[in-house]
């Protein structure tokens, strides 16, 4: 069962600190992501959510602490071991990051071409399946510039899923979308988590999304430079005593 304590941890973050040019973004961040759950990283703008995500996927090296994905230490990993691990994660980027001169189907073909020897026909079929999963079957031949923001996010998810990774990272899936499109995306994430058994790590600051999709969450805070809460988002909303957490969930303005 997703989110139950018995499920094993697929990601372990221990005492992680992030610094840029000596400026600490956050420190002492420690949490587990369990198999099959939708894990949400939340917090206000600029508190380091994307930075935490980029540390988790090994794009930035930790200033302190460690990250383990599927039992493998992420930092210092290189060569074939790094590529093998990268195949097992998919990332949807905050800005979409679709390759602008390629169609959606070709975008999904990039990781397939890079990591497998599948013939072009097979790549194309896989791309169609993935686009179908996110409801974009009709848009396979379109360029990223020709689709709406919500479609671009969906295409980003489809590309992240190209290699059937067991873990998907999504950075702000609903940012910049209208509430209805955003709710549709939340429903898609829940459905994929249920149908595919994929573990999701979702960065967001949208309250609606957090409550709709999150099994568990952590909350980062800019002032505290670290985690200020961890647990079931609905329980945090109802029970947390931390004034910042309460303010966030109840949309209050801190005095």
């Amino acid at each position, binding site marked *: 069962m997703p989110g139950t304590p018995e499920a094993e941890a697929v990601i372990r973050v221990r005492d992680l600190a992030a610094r840029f040019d000596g400026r600490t973004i956050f420190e002492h961040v420690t949490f587990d992501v369990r198999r099959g759950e939708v894990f949400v990283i939340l917090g206000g703008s600029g508190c380091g959510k994307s930075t935490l995500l980029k540390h988790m996927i090994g794009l930035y090296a930790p200033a302190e602490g460690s990250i383990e994905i599927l039992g493998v230490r992420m930092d210092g990993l290189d060569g074939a071991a*790094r590529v093998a691990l*990268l*195949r097992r994660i998919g990332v949807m980027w905050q800005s979409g990051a*679709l390759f602008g001169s*390629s*169609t959606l189907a*070709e975008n999904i073909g990039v990781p397939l071409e890079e990591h497998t020897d599948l013939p072009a026909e*097979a790549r194309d079929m896989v791309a169609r399946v993935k686009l179908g999963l996110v409801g974009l079957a009709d848009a396979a031949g379109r360029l990223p510039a020709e689709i709406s923001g919500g479609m671009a996010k969906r295409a980003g998810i489809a590309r992240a899923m190209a290699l059937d990774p067991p873990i998907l990272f999504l950075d702000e899936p609903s940012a910049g979308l209208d509430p209805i499109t955003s709710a549709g995306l939340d429903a898609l994430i829940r459905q994929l988590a249920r149908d595919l058994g994929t573990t999701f790590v979702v960065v967001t600051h949208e309250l609606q999304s957090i409550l709709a999709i999150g099994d568990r969450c952590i909350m980062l805070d800019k002032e505290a430079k670290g985690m200020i809460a961890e647990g079931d988002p609905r329980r945090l909303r109802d029970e947390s005593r931390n004034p910042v957490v309460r303010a966030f969930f109840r949309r209050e303005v801190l005095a």
Partner: protein
Amino acid sequence: MSATAPDPATLDIRPDGPGRRLAFRGGLDAAAAARLWPEAMRAARGVHPLTLDLGGVTALDTAGAVLLLRLEREAHRAEFQGLAAGPLQALLDRTRAALDRPGPKPQPALPFLGRVGEATLRRARGAAGQVAFLGESLLAGLGALRAPWRLRWPEVLRHLDEAGLRAFGLTTLLGFLIGLILAFQSSIPMKQFGAEIFIPNLVGISLLRELGPLMAAVILAGRTGSAYAAELGTMTVNEEIDALRIMGIDPIAWLVLPRLLAAMLVMPVLALLMNLAGLLGMSVVMGTLGFPLVAVVNQLQAWVHLKDLVGGLAKAAMFGLAIGLVGCRAGLGAGRGPRAVGDAATAAVVGGIVSIVLLDGVSAVLFFRLGW
């Protein structure tokens, strides 16, 4: 390209009455599907009845399911045996449903252009006159996706087209005008000595050795260096570079190498074009001064040497490389936020022009030492 499944899939092909039985065992993931694809496809072609025995399959991913469904289509019909109900069966069903859904209206133009592009590419590599057509059809047709250790030729051709062919008009025009102006300006003092016949020497040498490569490089820095920086800068800001890295693709091999090669190949051609157009402009001025074309050509033949031309073109290639490097570097090093792309483009043009002037100085000393 390591297999992720602990037990890589195997395929066993047996005759089965009039038809065939394909028994898969082990983890049928993307790597395994890719490996078994040609063999399985051959075995299934037109076979009736086809049985796909999946009793030994321990893992299946989308690519594996695609292989099975493609085999079914290849044989027109197939019987799936032995797949236990559960996640594997669910994945197969989901994949089938997604593939059965009517896709987008097929765009016949694209695949066709792609095929034409590929066939032409094979035949016409090196046939520079075809580059424009190739560049455009490849651009439209092929995704231009190649593994990083191999150079992405379609990408190279695209950049050759954009940096080269599309600059031909501008280069010719500027070259012609520069030849015209140089010849006209120098004709005034030369006339005082009655030395107009030496104008071709002056203009020819300065064009071939200096102005041709330099002006072509300025054009390249303005058009192409800035475009490289803007393209790569946009990709950096959009996290596309991060996305490539996370896919295990080296952005240098994927994005920079084709651009560098294109800039280097295109520069000698642009410089040559510049030279020829400049000489033409000079000849026009000479014509108005009463010297026929033959006289100009004779003068050039006697005084301008091949080494002047070749030295200039070699320098041009060097300039191209420098401009490409500076432009790509500026793009990949773009900072964060909306101004980053503009800043990168500016840095590319300024850095490109400064670097070619420096290089020009260095090569002047070098050529002097070498006795060119």
